[in-house]
């Protein structure tokens, strides 16, 4: 009536079914974990934003929203471009490897308008004149929350609360159009 138990067969069957069960659980997990990826709606809302550069005069700055972040687009003047290298020593990180304007372009700088201290929005002060926060101001950004200073290329001054330069978002220039975000 009762056959002899073959322990090897039993062990083999237990292992096989165990593996089968594990694979099934993993298989079930895949759709649920994938569902957490950004949906098409999120991808659409987070898609790249286009900006027409012909509308921006030299010395002016435009603010554009991308992924709920203000993006500063600055059309640098010739004077600004000459002044930037003079400030290298005053910078925590002069970012010499990133190009003069820290973008792939010789006229425009593209920055995230988020202070790297505690995320306030820095104010644009392109005027070259003495300021309350700097007698030798050569133009740049000043953050009113805690007094952080950045130059026109978004580089952070030494001795302010903000630790690093203003972040440069991914961007590409296509003729007269700036695309912020990953290219389509």
């Amino acid at each position, binding site marked *: 009536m009762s056959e002899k138990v073959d322990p090897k067969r039993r062990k083999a069957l237990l292992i096989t079914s165990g593996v089968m069960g594990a694979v099934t659980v993993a298989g079930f997990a895949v759709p649920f974990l994938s*569902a957490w990826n950004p*949906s098409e709606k999120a991808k659409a809302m987070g898609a790249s934003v286009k900006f027409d550069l012909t509308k921006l005069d030299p010395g002016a700055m435009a603010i554009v929203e991308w992924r709920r972040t203000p993006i500063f687009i600055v059309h640098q003047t010739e004077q600004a471009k000459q002044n930037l290298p003079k400030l290298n020593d005053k910078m925590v990180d002069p970012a010499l490897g990133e190009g003069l304007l820290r973008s792939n372009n010789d006229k425009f700088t593209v920055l995230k308008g988020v202070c790297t201290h505690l995320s306030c929005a820095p104010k644009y002060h392109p005027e070259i004149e003495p300021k309350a926060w700097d007698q030798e101001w050569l133009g740049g950004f000043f953050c009113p929350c805690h007094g952080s200073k950045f130059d026109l290329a978004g580089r952070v001054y030494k001795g302010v609360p903000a630790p690093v330069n203003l972040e440069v978002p991914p961007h590409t220039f296509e003729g007269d159009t700036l695309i912020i975000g990953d290219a389509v």
Partner: protein
Amino acid sequence: MSNKKNSFMSWLDRRLPVTENLERHLTKHPVPKKVNFFYIFGALLMVVFMIQVVTGIWLMMFYTNTEEGAFASVEYIMRDVDYGWLMRYMHSTGASAFFLLMYFHMFRGLLYGSYQKPKELVWLFGCFLLFLLMAEGFLGYVLPWGQMSYWAANVILSLFGAIPFIGPDLQVWIQGDYVLSGITLSRFFALHVVVVPLLMIALVVFHIFALHEVGAGNPEGVDIEKHRDKKGMPLDGAPFHPYKTFSALPAIGIFFIVFFAIVFFAPTGGGYFIEKPNFEEADFLKTPEHIAPVWYYAPFYSILRAVTFGIPFLGITSKFLGFIIFAASIAILFIVPWLDRSNVQSIRYKGVYSKIAMVLFAASFVTLGYLGTKPVNEMRTLIAQICTVFYFAPFILMPIYTKYEKTKKVPERL
């Protein structure tokens, strides 16, 4: 190596009764050796419950529970969310599976006398679970806010409105508004997602504890506890783990074959699992041609519609009487343990009247179900009325025929 494991277990057992319960409920819990396929449905129900909870939680992450956003959010799930469509279909197919399994599970109970003493509580908890499941399905179907969601909800809510004196106020109170609206939707969402599932989990726990206290039955209706071996294990019993746990696994496999065949190839169930009008957003100015409930409510809906008369001199409208009889069709299940006066547990050894009764009940239930999905006409109403009588008769007459019919002798051993 094994010393480490033993000392870990003893550390754990001193703080939490792990080994004790594993043995009591699994590895040393005796269940009858020989049962048939009717005994698998409890395990499958637990699997489906888990599927519903997990898919439900995920759907909740993307669903909008407001009137303005609900319908669009379901399409968002179907189109924009990775695998959202799979989660939606698993949830809707799971609902239908839940009911189908539930009906078979309960039928097993009726056939093999699983409700008999001392398992009355197991049965009562189970009936309560049926009631909760019916509420849960209704609440859930309203959430997509399609045409059928809205109009079928209207029908059910108006039943409450038919209760004399308090009806209309009660209906407004349930709705939270003078008409069914987004306010009702939001509260149905809370009930569907939290309240009813928590109650169901609690009841399932009680249901299983009550069962384990007494021990599972078998198709022969034999009491396996009567004959034990030297170690105290019933001769006709075997420990639940590994014999029953491993026997559940292939059944779960077969279940998933059928389940996923539906999900991948016929997710709307031919219009019976997700009804066609529900692919159109709820419009309170336009009634669908034919308001039908989902298939699993059809038998009870049929009974409701079959009551075409009231009791005028008592001030009871046909609508209210219909509601009463519809409620009675579920309520009567609760008292079956006390209606059955047989000294025999299983249909196999009961008399011919019990067998006729079971067949009549099953045939009526299925016929009523079929009729419930169709529009009414005179002939169909008549048949529904006949079937309603044949639905109740097996229960109402049960105290009589089970007491007096001639039964067969139940064997001692399986």
